[in-house]
């Protein structure tokens, strides 16, 4: 059986997570698109923490007999992995988009300079070289 104190502590923590996420959405510091997964995570954890019979039942299904709260860790870990994976896909999309933007900006600026008869003019702008250099094949 899950100790009552663990249930209470976990419930409070989960509720806090939900509240923080809601507050971030309210303050427009977190877009709903990205908040949804966090809300689901918080709510699922809250339910499992507070509903002690449920947690015990699920632990029984999974063969966890000694310490049912371990299920809380497992579920939390699972959700964190899902959130991270989601971020990776978002990052990949942003990466592609920023590449296209940089290419378009470069081409547009070249066209603008040519139109204004100012080619050559480029000064490099904000050349923040953080990624590895290119310019050579194997």
């Amino acid at each position, binding site marked *: 059986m899950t100790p009552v104190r663990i249930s209470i502590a976990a419930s409070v923590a989960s509720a806090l997570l939900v509240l923080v996420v809601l507050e971030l959405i309210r303050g427009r510091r977190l877009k709903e698109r990205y908040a949804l997964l966090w809300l689901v995570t918080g709510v699922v954890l809250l339910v499992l923490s507070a509903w002690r019979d449920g947690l015990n039942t699920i632990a029984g299904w999974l063969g966890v007999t000694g310490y049912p709260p371990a299920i809380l860790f497992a579920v939390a870990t699972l959700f964190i992995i899902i959130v991270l994976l989601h971020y990776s896909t978002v990052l990949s999309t942003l990466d592609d988009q920023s590449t296209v933007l940089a290419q378009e900006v470069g081409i547009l600026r070249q066209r603008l300079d040519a139109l204004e008869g100012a080619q050559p003019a480029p000064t490099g702008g904000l050349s923040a070289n953080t990624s590895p250099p290119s310019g050579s*094949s194997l």
Partner: protein
Amino acid sequence: MLAIVPAYDEEGAIGRLVDEIRAFDPAFDVVVVDDGSTDATAEVAAARGAAVVVLPFNLGIGGAVQTGFRYALERGYERAVRLDGDGQHDPAELGKLLAPLERGEADIVTGSRFVVGRGEYRPPLARRLGITWFARLVSLFTRQRVTDTTSGFQALNRRGIELFARDYPNDYPEVEATLLVHKCGLRLVEVPVEMREREHGASSITFVRSVYYMLKVTLALVVAMLRKYPTLSQEAPRQ
């Protein structure tokens, strides 16, 4: 015709390269894609009369090269050649690349250092291993003999330009691009060329990085094999 030259910190080599392309055929327009250089690459290239596209930050070789293809597509060029900004691709060899295009035998022509008959080029061991590995792998995947998948010395017709403007990989893009060309049903031909040693600066590739890239590109190749590609139809959708 357009010559696309991706360049990163190549102020020492770029000027001569632009001149040599012009000397080979004055009909060539040259666009230098300055991939966030910190030196005077853009100024030197522009002073020699090349159009210069300055990327606002470093995209890596694939992103830089693709910029050139987009430029070619937008400006309506029917043919494009690509030479690396470090000067290892000799413009005097361009005729060999363009010949199969003129005869209508290929959509994309790659200058290979390893087609039988030209054995002089001896790259360092790690690089040679990488080149061989990818050549074997790509040959296996495409069931077509490919000897040099890492060469960026290429000539393309309009179909080739359209394909690469729409979809071009990033790290060691030439390897994956070879597969892409095959998947999209374009005709790829290799011709033997001789390449020069780098003239200025150091190659950007160290041993550790070579191994890292080999793993990464191998993964990319396998993924590329499994990926679905749209067939190249009338109007390519913009990314």
